[in-house]
Structure formats: structure tokens, C-alpha cells
């Protein structure tokens, strides 16, 4: 492997990892912290991408990407809020049932979008300053990929601040650690649940908005990402966000280098997925283990 190829693989890995982290962050919260298997997470990405389309397309609002990111967050967070209030809250403590029910929600969302916008691919345009490359030596760095890494870092920072520096974050951690006790101390666990879920799905909206500018936007796009995102969360280890970041980096880097070595992106995906499953069979708790005393 030459130095240039290595550099390319490295920069690819970096952006792949950021995308994986971005798509998995919402799941890391709903799945890792709230123990809800949101199979509609992929559809939340899709909704984010379509929101971005509505915001940026001349036909509708005609604004640019910088508007699309916060608007996608708000729109998808609202959808997530509705989902939590209308469905998920009846299913806490039954993770397998949340899996099936949210899959159903995903099917409905897909078809509603399909009927509204049609099955065709929606092309999206980047703002001019994000098009093109930066050249560093013999290495081409696409600007948008660098932008993605930046957005991911910002999202991570926002989550960190929200979790550890705000009183609401404190409440979330309290509810996660000991729900009855938190409730007894006057924390409205209902509000915490629904707001956390909404925030997590909102992150998926941001991810969708970012990915809509990178890949094809299609009403079925969600399914392609959700399984991998779950693998990121499981690989990292449940219950902590840093684990998911590590999981994303491992899988993203693996994909970046494997596709360079094999010369085939699809086969690289298969190989990496197989390796992740193999790793989980040997070490089911993932990379980072949170010590738990739970019996079952």
C-alpha cells in the first residue's frame, strides 16, 4: 500500500467513521440508555434527508444546507416525540416488542413518503464552499467530508454538554440509574423519557440531512443504515456513548481500509460485518463494559 493510498484510506475511514457515529448516536441513546429498539431509526434518517430536500429545493423553501441541519433536527425530533408519546411509552420494558412495533412505524413512514414525494431519487446540491477538494500534498480531501467530521464533533460536544453540564442531563442520568428513586425525588420521568427520545431521533434527522447530500436519497434508504448502526452500538458496548464512538471508529476504519485492500466496497462491508459478529460472539458485551448488577 503506497503512502497516497494509505492517506486516501485514512481520510475515507475518518469520514465513514463520522457518518457511522452520527447515525449511531441517536441509537446509542434510545437503545443504549433507554433500552428501546427503534427500528424506525433508519426512517428517521430518511425523514431528515427529505426535510433537507424540502428546505434546500428551489421548488419548496430554497434555503441552504446550514438551515437544513437545524430544521431537520427539529422536524425529526417532533416526529420522534409523537412516536414516544403515542406508542413507545406503552412498550417500555419489552424491548423485543418495541423492535416489532417501530418496524411497523418505519413501514408506514416509508410508504407515506413514497406516496408524497414519489419513488424517484431526489438529488441535492451542496453550497459552493463545500464542493471540491482541499489538496494536501498528493492527497485530495473532499471539503464536504471534512465538514461531516466537524458536524459529528459538534454533535458529540452538544451531547456531552447536554448530558453532563445541564440539569436536564442530570435528570436523564438519574432516571437511567434508578427510575423509581428519581421519580420519588420529583423528576417527571415521563417528560425525561419523551424529551430524550425526541432528542435522540432529532440526531438521526441531522445525520439524514448530512447523508442526503452525500448519497442517494430514497424512501427505502433507512434500511441500509439501521443494521450497521445497531452493530456500532453493540460493538461499543451498551450504556455509554463513548463506546458507540469507539464502535463507529472501528467499523468505519475497518470499512475504509478493507475496501481499499479488497478493491470492492460491498465485499468489504460483508467482511467487516462478519468480523464484528465474530468479535461479538467471543465478547458479547462489546468493547467497553459497563459494570451492572442486574440479574436478568
Amino acid at each position, binding site marked *: 500500500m503506497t503512502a497516497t493510498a494509505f492517506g486516501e484510506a485514512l481520510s475515507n475511514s475518518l469520514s465513514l467513521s463520522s457518518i457511522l457515529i452520527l447515525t449511531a448516536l441517536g441509537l446509542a441513546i434510545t437503545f443504549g440508555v433507554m433500552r428501546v429498539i427503534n427500528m424506525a431509526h433508519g426512517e428517521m434518517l430518511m425523514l431528515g434527508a427529505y426535510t433537507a430536500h424540502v428546505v434546500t429545493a428551489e421548488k419548496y423553501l430554497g434555503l441552504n444546507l446550514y438551515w437544513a441541519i437545524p430544521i431537520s433536527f427539529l422536524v425529526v425530533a417532533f416526529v420522534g416525540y409523537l412516536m414516544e408519546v403515542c406508542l413507545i411509552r406503552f412498550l417500555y420494558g419489552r424491548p*423485543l*416488542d418495541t423492535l416489532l412495533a417501530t418496524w411497523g412505524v418505519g413501514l408506514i413512514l416509508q410508504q407515506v413518503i413514497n406516496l408524497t414525494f414519489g419513488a424517484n431519487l431526489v438529488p441535492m446540491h451542496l453550497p459552493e464552499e463545500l464542493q471540491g477538494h482541499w489538496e494536501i500534498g498528493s492527497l485530495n480531501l473532499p471539503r464536504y467530508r471534512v465538514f461531516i467530521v466537524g458536524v459529528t464533533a459538534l454533535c458529540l460536544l452538544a451531547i456531552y454538554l447536554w448530558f453532563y453540564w445541564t440539569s436536564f442531563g442530570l435528570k436523564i442520568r438519574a432516571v437511567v440509574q434508578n427510575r423509581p428513586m428519581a421519580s420519588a425525588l420529583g423528576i417527571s420521568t415521563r417528560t425525561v423519557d419523551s424529551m430524550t427520545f425526541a432528542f435522540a431521533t432529532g440526531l438521526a434527522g441531522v445525520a439524514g440531512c448530512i447523508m442526503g447530500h452525500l448519497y442517494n436519497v430514497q424512501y427505502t434508504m433507512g434500511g441500509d443504515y439501521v*443494521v450497521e448502526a445497531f452493530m456500532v452500538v453493540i460493538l461499543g458496548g451498551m450504556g455509554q456513548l463513548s463506546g458507540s464512538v469507539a464502535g463507529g471508529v472501528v467499523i468505519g476504519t475497518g470499512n475504509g481500509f478493507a475496501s481499499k485492500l479488497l478493491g470492492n466496497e460491498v465485499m468489504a462491508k460483508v467482511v467487516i460485518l462478519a468480523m464484528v459478529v465474530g468479535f461479538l460472539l467471543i465478547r458479547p458485551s462489546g468493547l467497553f463494559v459497563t459494570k451492572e448488577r442486574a440479574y436478568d
Partner: protein
Amino acid sequence: MTNPQSLSPTVTAVVSVKTEVPPRPAASPHWGRVLVLFFLLALFVPPFLFGGNEYRLNQITRYAALALFALSVDVIWGYTGLLSLGQGLYFGLGAYAVGYSLILQQAAVAEDLPFVYSPDMARPDYMVQCRLPEVPIWIGQLINIWVALGVAVIVPTLIAALFGYVVFRRGIKGVYFSLITQAVLMAVFTLVSNQRPYTGGVDGLTNLADLRLFGFEFQGSYYLYFLVTGILVLCFLACAALMASKFGRILTAIRDSENRVLALGYNTAMYKTFAFALSAGMAGLAGGLFVAANSSAGPQFFSIADSIEVVIFVAVGGRGTLVGAILGAVLVNVARTYANEHWREIWPILLGGLFVVVVAFMPDGIVGLFRRLAARLTGGRAAREASA
């Protein structure tokens, strides 16, 4: 107070409750059995409703194969409590085994060659297009339909046994099990779609020969339906016997509280592995039979959506009841066919709504509703047992 005497009355009370109440048989077992018998006999009726309509006959034959698939999911999910989202892997393996057999037969018929493996045997069209010089030996051997059917059952069983052994020994269960099986399925789906020279790629195996066993043509008549339904009923009876036995009781006990079963000294990992392997074998057989009726096999069998859909068949009918699995598979598929013929666009929304409603509000499915109704009609004892 640590006086042991103050504790003893409660202890003896608990013990006496446990010994004085033997496990009762289910409410009015005779009626239940008669109903199930009628249900199984009713499965053989539909072909007569459609006369010689070959299209409909093929359709209901596929339903019967899917019902067998649903039965396999019920064994692992409904009874053992393990939601495998990768059942499509076993269904797909069975489907491709039989699919390879039939496509090779078709190619051999076209060149007037016998149905035996040889290095220069006739290649199916897609292999010719992909410039594969000869049929790989592991595919070529499948031209014998009996080998293919054997492979369709044995290979999934072995894979599931091995995979299950590792997974369950490592204590992977619940959500992790579901997501890992799903990830495996996705890897296989990607692989199969990508390896066109061997698998036919996204198009899969098309233009298959008709199924012939003992030199007897099954296609295009009642016979294939009766063959598939006969196998379905046999599997149903075998599962019913298994679930009524001590082994089946242990499986349901694992579903309800694995730690207690472990504490009683059972090796739950081995029980789960057996149930998983059994269900995989049934899924493989279902896949093989499905392909015989469908006349094509494609990578969508390995898709995540299809594997989850089978779970909803079982949930609609009633998880943990064998009748429910078959009933759910038939009803959902009839609804799908009807919807596709009348308002095609609406079907995914209906299916999604079905997932939500059944899971959130009807966890026992149709059989559960029926039981509750029966309990209300007969009242008293039956109602207590149905709610227990």
C-alpha cells in the same frame, strides 16, 4: 425478630401450595383438540375452491410454505422466547438449494442431458452470461432433487446448531440475539446479491424446472399443494407432540424465566440450541417448498424485511400457539394478495399498522382473542385459566 418459629408457618404454606396443586390440563382439552383437527383438515379444502386456476393454486401453495416458515419462527420465538430476525437465512438456504436443483435440471433438459453431476454439465443462463467456465461442484451435486432437499434441511440445521451453540453458550440472548442474527442475515444478503456468477445476483435463480419426485410431476395441479400442506401438517403434529412433552415445557419455561430453569439445573443453552436448529431445519424445508411453487428464488429471501414479516405472521395469529402461526401466515398473506390486487399503495401502511396494533394492543393474537372469547362464554374456571 429472628425467631425461626415465626417464619415457619409461611414457609410450610408456600410448600403446601406447591405440592397440593398439580399442574392442570388446559381448559377443555377435548374441544381444543377437535377444533385443531378441523383446522388441519380445513387446510386441505382451499384447492377445491379455485378449481383449475393454476395461478391461484400456486399462490395458496406458497402460503402453505410460508405457514411452515411461520411455524419455524413460532418454535423459536413463540415457545422459546428468542426472536430470531435471521430466519430468512435458513429459508433462503433451503430455497437456493432447491432452486439450484431445478435450474440445473432446466438447463440439462434444454441440452438433453441426464440429471447427474459432471464437470461439463449444462450451465444455467446466468452462469453462461457471467462466463463461469463450469458449474462449481458444490452447486452441481444439487441437480439430484433428493440431494437438494436433504441439503435444504440439513445445512440450515447444522449452521443453526453451530451458531446457536456458540451464541447460547456465550449467554447472548434477548435483543442481542435478535440484532446479531439480523447482522448475519444482512451480511449474507449482501454477499448473495453481490456474487452473481454463483448466485445469479439480484435477479436470483429464474426459469426453474417443475418439481418432480419419484418421476411424478407436481406442478400445475393440486398435488404440489397437497404435498406442501401434507408436510406442513406433519411438522405441525411433530411440533405439537414436542411442545406437549417435557422438552417443550422446558422451552416455555426458558421463555418465561430462564434463570429459574438454570437454577433447577437444566443446561438451557443446549435446549435453546436444539430449538434453534429444529426451527432452522423447518425454515429450510419451507424455503425449498416455497421455491418449488414460486418457480424462482431471489436474494430477497435473505432480506431483513422478509424475516421480520414472518414474525408478524406469528404475532397476528398468536405467538406460542402452533395454530396461530399457520392462521396468521394465511390471513396476512390473503390480506396482502387482496390489497395488492385492489389498492396496492396502501398495503405497506396496513402492514405497518398491523405491526403496531398487534404488538401494542393484541399481544396474544387472534388465538388469544378467541381463547378469551371462549373463556367468557364458558365462564368460571376456564376464564381463570385463560388469564393465567
